[in-house]
Each structure stands twice: as C-alpha cells, then as structure tokens.
C-alpha cells in the first residue's frame, strides 16, 4: 500500500465570516448519525438512548440535548432520529448496541452556524418557515433556495443550518447573499 494519508477537507474550507456582529461559519467538528428505530423496537432503543446519552427519545419535530450539551437528538419522524455529536460517530454507533439502525451521516451534510442581529432578517429572505414559532432547542425541516435544510434554533438570534454537502457552495452563497442584502 502506498504511503499516502488522505487529508479531509471541510466542504466549505472551514468558512467563517463576520458581517458586523453577525457571524456565519462552517461547523467542522461535529459528527452526525442517523438512528432508525427497528420495527417494534421502541423500548429497546429508548433504553439504549437513555443509557448512552441519558435522554428520553424526543417526539417528532423536537430535540433532546444531553446534560453536557455535547449531543443533540433530533426526532425527524416517529421512527427516525438524527444525532448531532461533538465527538466522532463510532462510539455512539457502537454504544447503541444494535438497538437502532445507524448510518454515519457526517459527510452528507454541511453545517453552518448563523448568529447575531442579522440572523433572523437574513433568514427572512430564504426561509419560508415562521421562525417566531420555532423555539430555542427545536428544529424543523424546510427548503431554502431549492435546497433541503434542517434548521435548529440555538437561541433567539442563533441557528444551525444543515444542508446537503454536495451543494454546500450554493447554500453558503444563498445565506451569504441574504446577509449582504439585509446588512445596513
């Protein structure tokens, strides 16, 4: 085998930019895994999740966060979840011990964090969702400029935006353009 080591490249090269007090940045240190609940496997999955992360399985459209804040579990539908991890995905996937079907989704998504006073005005230009109804620590799925997006609210002016990694450039352009357009 050749003595070559592949170096990973963030989809947006680790983008970070300040627009006044508003910050847009690519999050590169998080992993994502999807967790699907086996048929009739609620109890087993609940037990494993409780053991691994110490949280109750959230209801669809809601989110559960571990006490240390390092893991968020997003319930996307009654039997599927997306876990956002601050650690590599391997231990979590193993830690569920087969109670859920897991798939490493880290490379499927690009993650942007948008925070600051222009956060909501900028999103008004591309996000059809009423963000007034999206409370902190909850998420929803929508489309922005034709791209599927998961939007997770972390605070009044702080969101995490997940979109497909292959169109990361277009997604960044959409968000950047929105900020530029609303910047005083």
């Amino acid at each position, binding site marked *: *085998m050749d003595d070559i080591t592949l170096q990973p490249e963030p989809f947006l090269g680790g983008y970070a930019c300040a627009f006044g007090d508003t910050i847009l940045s690519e999050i590169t240190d998080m992993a994502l895994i999807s967790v699907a609940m086996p048929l009739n496997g609620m109890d087993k999955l609940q037990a494993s999740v409780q053991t691994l992360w110490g949280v109750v399985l959230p209801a669809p459209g809601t989110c559960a966060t571990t006490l240390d804040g390092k893991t968020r579990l997003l319930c996307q539908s009654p039997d599927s979840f997306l876990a956002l991890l601050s650690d590599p995905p391997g231990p979590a996937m193993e830690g569920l011990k087969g109670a859920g079907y897991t798939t490493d989704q880290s490379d*499927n998504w690009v993650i942007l964090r948008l925070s600051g006073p222009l956060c909501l005005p900028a999103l008004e230009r591309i996000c059809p969702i009423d963000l007034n109804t999206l409370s902190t620590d909850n998420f929803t799925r929508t489309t922005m400029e034709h791209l599927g997006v998961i939007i997770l609210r972390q605070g009044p002016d702080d969101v995490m935006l997940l979109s497909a*990694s*292959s169109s990361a450039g277009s997604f960044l352009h959409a968000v950047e353009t929105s900020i530029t357009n609303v910047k005083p």
Partner: protein
Amino acid sequence: MTQSNRIKGGLIDRSQQLGFTFNGKPMQGHPGDTLASALLANGQRLVGRSFKYHRPRGIFTAGSEEPNALVQLRTGAHQEPNTRATTSELFDGLTAISQNHRGPLEFDLMAVTGLLSPFLSAGFYYKTFMWPKAFWEKIYEPVIRMSAGLGSLSKLDDPDIYDKGFLHCDILIIGAGPTGLEAALTAGRSGARVIIADEDFVIGGRLNAETCEIADGPGADWARHATTELASMDNVRVMPRTTVYGAYDHGVYGALERCTDHLGDSSGKPRQVLWRIYAKRSILCAGATERPIAFGNNDRPGVMLAGAVRTYVNRFGVAPGRTVAIFTNNDDGWRTASDLAAKGVDISAIIDSRNQDAPTQIADARVVMGGRVVDTSGRKGLTSVTLANGEKVTADCLAVSGGWSPNVHLTCHQRGRPIWRDDIAAFVPGADLPDGMIVAGAANGTLTLAAGLADGRDKATELVKGLGFTASKTPAIVAQDEPADLSAFWHVAASRKPAWLDLQNDVTVKDIKQAHAEGFRSVEHLKRYTTLGMATDQGKTANIPALAIMADISGKTIPETGTTIFRPPYTPVPIGALAGRARGSGFRPVRHTPSHKWAEANGATFVETGNWLRAQWYARDGEKGWRDSVDREVTMTRASVGICDVTTLGKIDIQGRDAAEFLNHIYTNAFLKLPVGKVRYGLMLREDGVAYDDGTTARLGENHFVMTTTTANAVLVFRRMEFARQCLWPGLDVHMISVTDGWAQFAVAGPNARKLIQKVVDCDVSNDAFPFMACAQTTAFNTTPARLFRISFSGELAYEIAVPARYGNAMMGALMQAGKEFDAVPYGTEALGVMRIEKGHAAGNELNGQTTATNLGLGGFVSAKKDCIGKVLSQRPEMMRDDAIRLVGFKPVDHSKQLIAGAHFITRGDAANMANDQGWMSSVTYSPTLGHSIGLGFIKRGHERMGEVVTATSPARGGDVQVEITSPHFYDPEGGRQRG
C-alpha cells in the same frame, strides 16, 4: 426652470433642493415630491403622448392608477420604461424621459395618427391588414411593431439586484390610510403580530392629501403619530413603499417592496424585494379610486381628477393650474374647490351635474348647478372648457370628480364577484372573499372618514378576538364624516367630440358603442375588442365609467352588465423582482462532486447532469477538440487504467431485518439470498411494468445493504422506496437513508486497475479473494474508511472505491499519484458514455420510460419465482409480443459513416414514413476502440435479426445510413476482461 406652481404648505421638505431632468431639461423639486408633483411644480403639464393617437397627455391622477404620466426613468442599463410619475419618489439626479413620440414631445411626428382616428376605432386591427397576404410579415407586422408598445427597454442586462422573502403574521393590513392605521393600532395594541403595508412612501393614505381633522388636529399629523406608535411595537411591522399585489390561496399574499427606487444609487442592496406573506387573517383597507366623467376632449393635459388636484395642493404644495375649473357629480368636487380657495388658487367655475342647490359656498367662484362640460380647448394643454350652453370658461386645469370606486381588486383574486351599491354608485366586495380576508373602510364602500376609522377599529377588534387576543380598550378616535352625496353621472351625452374613457389605451365612448354594435356585448369581449382596462393601469379609472356606458347602451343595469375579473398583480411587478436573485449562476443550486477542485485544477470541462457538475473530459495540450480528449481517455483506460468520479450515482443505505425481502419486492430479480460481501445488478419496474431504473446493490452485512441508482433517478427511487416501506409493506422491518452525498466514489477501470487498487486498500483484491461482483468494507491509504466494489460499467476489469466525501478530493489526487506508474488517466462522462455503449449497457437513453425489460433484453431478470413492483402488468400480452422492439447494436456498413442518435430504422428500399418505422437509434458514439461509429437502439425482433442490414434514416438531420444489426456488446462480449 423655477418652481412656478409651488404654493405654500404640503408635506415636502423645502429646506432641501433636489435636481432632476425631464427630457434633458433641468428642474428642481424637494424631498417628499413625486416626479409628477415636481413636474407640475415646474409648470410641466405635457408629459407624454397617448398610445394610439399620440395625443398630448398630462398628469391625470396622484397615485398608482395613473394612465397617462408614464415615463422612462433613469438611463443606460438602469433605464425603466412605463414608470408612473405619480408614484415615483423624487431623488437628486433623477432623469426622466417622456414616451411614445417620434421627435420632440411637443412636436410628435406620430401625432398624424390622430388625424386618422376616425378610421382607427375599436377592432381596427382585426378588420384591417387582411390583404394582400404578402404584406402580413414584410410590411404590416414591422410597421405595427414599430408603432406599438409603450416605452423601450435598454436591451442591456439589468444591473440591479432583486430579492425575495417570506413574512408571517396574524393580521395583514393592506393599505395604511385612516382605516388601515386604525385597524393596525387596534390589532397591534392587542398583541397580535401585524404587518401593515402601503404602496405610498408616506404612511397615511388620503389623510396626507386632505385637510380633514382627527382628534382635533390635522389628519396627516394623526397618521404620523399612529405610524410612530406602530413602529414602536415589536409585534408590528410597518412597510411603506410596499404594494400587496395579489391574494393567493391559504392566506398567502404577494407584496412588492420598493427598497431603493427612491435613491439615486442602490449601493449594492436589492432594489426591490418580492415578499410572500403568510397571514392568518387580513384586512383590506385599500381605499377607493376616483373616477372621471366622459366628455369631449377630456384627455388634454390639465384635465385631472379632483382628488388628485387636492393631493397636489395639500400634500405637495403645488397648484396644478393657475385657473382651475371643477366638474363634479358629487360633494367631493366641492372639497377640491374649498381646498383650492384656501390656498388662494383662482377658481373659474364649479360645474356640478346635479340639479340641486350648491352644497357649499366658495367665495368668488362661479357655480353652474346642473351643468355639463361638453368640450375643451388647448393644443398641448387645457386653456378653456366649453359648457353645454356653448359658454367657454377659462381654465388651465379642470378637476373632474365622477365619484369613488372602492378598490375591490384583491377581493376578486380568487374569483370573488363584487356587488353593486346604488347609494355610492359603485361596486363593493361581495361575500365570497379570499379565506381569512375582511374589508374595511373605503374599500368596503365606507367612504367617509369617521365611518372608515370606526370600521377599521371594529373589523380589527373582530379579528383579534377571533384569534384569541384581547382587544385593547383605547377610546375611539374623534373625527367627522365629510359630505359625500353623489348622483351617478358617467358621460356627457351632448358632447360631439371624442370622449375618452381609457386614457392609456385611447378607448373612447364611441369605441364602446361600436363594440356593442358589432356584437361584443359581454364585458370580457368588450375588454378584448377595445383593449379597455388593459396595460399598466388595468383600467383603474376607466372600467366603471365604461361599464356604465355599456350598461346604458344595452339597456341593462350596471350589475347586470357585470365586471371583468381582477387578477394579480394589482399594479405592475417587474420581471426582475419576480426572478429575484435567481439569475445567472444563482438560477439554481449546483452540486459539486467531491473531486471537483481536483478536476478544475486538471483541466476538466464540466457538464451539467441535473444539478451536478461533472467532469466531461480532461483536455491535454495539443488536443484539437473534445474528441481527441475522449478518444485518448478511452484508449488509455482500455490499455492501462482510468479513474472517474462516479459519486453522482444515487446511494441508499438500507438496513433492517427484512431489508433483503424488501429489496426482493423492489427489484425484478432475486435479492433474498444475495450473500454478504456480494453485489448484484438489479432492475426496477414501474407499477405499469415499464422499466424504471437499474443499478447495483451490495450486501455489506446480513441486514445491511447499499444500493446505487442512476444519477437522474436517485431521488425518485428513494422516494418510491420510502413509499413502499411506509404504505405497501409497513410490516417489514426496513429503513433507508440517502448517502449519495456522504461517499465519494471512484471507478477505477482497465487492465491495471487491480494493481492500482492493491496499492490503495488493505485487503486482498486478487481475483480469487475478491472476484467480480464482490464487495468489502476496508480502508484506503491506511487509515481512511472505504468501501470497495468489484463492478464494471466500462467492460474492463474494474472497481469502484468509496471514501467519506470530505476525503474525496484528496482521494482523486492520491489515486492519480498511485496510478502514475501505470499512466493512469482521469476520464469524464464522455469517455464513460463511450465505454458503456461499446459494452452495450443500457442507460438513460434506453431506460426512457417507454421500454420494458423484454425490450431491453433483460426479460430474464424478471424472476418467475417471486413478485415485485410492476411484475403483473409487465406480463400483459402487448408487452410480451414476439415482434416487440429489442435492444441491439448497430454499426455502419460503410465504417466511414457517422450514425445519428434518434434515427429511425426502416427496411432498405422502403419509404421513410411511420408505417415502415421499425424502431430507433437510442445512443451513438464514435468508438476509438473499434475505429468507427457504433450505436445502440431498439428494432422489432432485433435479437433475431443479427447481421441484417437496415436503413437508419434521419431526414431532418442528415439522410440515410445503412447499418448492420449486431450484438449490443461490441466490446468483449464474453465478459472475460471484467471478470479477469
């Protein structure tokens, strides 16, 4: 030019001067002016020419209903035609040019058409230019095109930026006049989320144009205080310069916000934003539009609506004329007289069509009750009006009031029909309003101030309560209702001169009569025959008077005559705003393959495949065209090894105890017993039995598969499988998720592919250990997790290796580096396509939604031992005919001939017609391996006709080529290379 008509008062900022030009003539105005008010202030009455007859035209209104004062604003690429001077906010440096004339505005050469007006009546175009036929395209059309149209485009790319956006609220209030403001205050104070939008740049509507009082102060002051209070509420959004132009389903409204139109320079910000507003409820407070009275030569510059005259006097501090006459059928005209008198403007006469006592006394003004204006004089501007008794009254401005029509337009956007109210001689909204909408104030026929305020407050209270809010207990505001008596009067029948109804389209009373005489008696027919109510103003001032005349002619009432349907937009929306930011490279999202950067750096030419950009070929120095590059890539791959990024193929991760059974249902062929570590080709059918998609699926574990789909069908297949999982077989334990973006996948093909792959992965890839159709989870370059598949689309010994996407760019470089000793070559989609045709693989051209497994030669893939989606209908007799088309290969008898994709096959000597059609060529390529053109295609009983020569005919694209039917597998038909 000095501002000779500027008078005292108004809401303009006289401390600042704004310079602008009209037809190159420098003029001055003030902040708060519109272009129209500034033109009038500078004594410019003639502002354009009419569309058809090129008649001199002036400013007629003070709002968005303006039919006359359309100008080209700005210059160069920023030039915009058909801009209403009455709504264009003045800014320093504004340049405006008048429209629709040849030569100077004052001496329009096209005015000669006015002399021909007796011959250019309604339907002229439909009845003339019929003969001779030879003139249609060479003479008539160019001449008509040269004369037609309003304004001209710059024909340059629009340099402005536009954007779109989404807003949400409990209550949308459309219009910020007194009713809208009072409704917004009521709703806002209750805590409801409110958006109040108004097309004007100053909030307040008619309050800014009138002298009425609210709470013992000027109405305009109250409007300003109300706006300040609303702006201070976190739950209220005040949107001036915003027209709500359409009411759509489910409480969705379209609105256009003009963000920088009032500035000389947009400073890189969007000029306009097109908003989609989601409102739980809405209150339409759009006010009313004054309408004219038709009489002879009523289109001269200086003839204006009476309400507009008040606006110019009260809001802008401009006297539209030095000597003003008033012609009215209602009390409103008298308010104009009062306001003019208060400003010291000379009033030569008040002519009221009603036979009654004058409602008020205006000092020094002559009053003619029961009077009529039958004609006007003044070539380029009004000088006098002629009364029915022949008396001429001097006037350079005639203020006309025919009453007010509620702006019901948005109530009709979902087919709502307005209803007639005799007491105000106007249509008001009917009962079938858009869901969630109610109407208040003048838009609802409540035309007086105090009643309008109360209506706004009451309607808002009703809505907020319905939404669960507690209405505020703020005391009702104090205001007086103004006199509003009216006697319907539409047309001075005694006029012998042309009487205009639709000033924008030059439609006269005579045209209406002619349309009726010629049988165009439905309102919709009338509109289309005469062009009444078309173009930028959509007949806002013309429709009702025209309807009244139509009703009169036909002996019906106005409600019996009906109205045309109002459709969005209420006022024009620029195409640029509709496009928003979706222009050029921003038109749609682009998907990049993980090795895109490497490909860019290595000379790739890219091709769009759906949203993906894929490397099409990699040109090298000395190559004269794409064919050289593609031929080289194919030849070098077949000679040694080539590498291609195939990430775009759909990848679906499938897990579950019943995953194998599920796949057995999805695919036509068996997957239940596919061993772990193996890959299998699979075919899917649509429910109707037609072939749908194909690909490979690898079994990574007992309950774990990864499927590949075609690039084009990646989403469709996933969606269809999710439907099957949830709806067809909910009892199966299976889950799936897309991993298309998650894995960068590369085809490594060619006789040296094994040697190259062995340098990359840590597992044994010998033919014994890793045979054709094997798969494994491994690592690439020591540490990177990888998946390896022994599959081939090229017909060569080949592998596909996948690594997590963020390693993809590095992986491509590393593969090329490792393959250097084998002269590894990157290849693009063109070479990929050439090799798949040489190998005889079906792709999108063959899986085109019309072909069956039998047609494709894949009948054997439809298992007889199990069921699958589409199986039953695939067994219909018609789909299993012996003479069905079959996928075969074709090569030219004369190898120097090029085949043409899309050519149809006929027996040699037969005529090229549908009756003799036997099939078509679906894919062709030049084969660098074989040295001639080859093709795949479908022909009846093709599999039984090997060696037969037929004609491939393409009459439209190059005639006939004699072709021999062959196996579709031109290259290595036994498959020894890919299995070796």
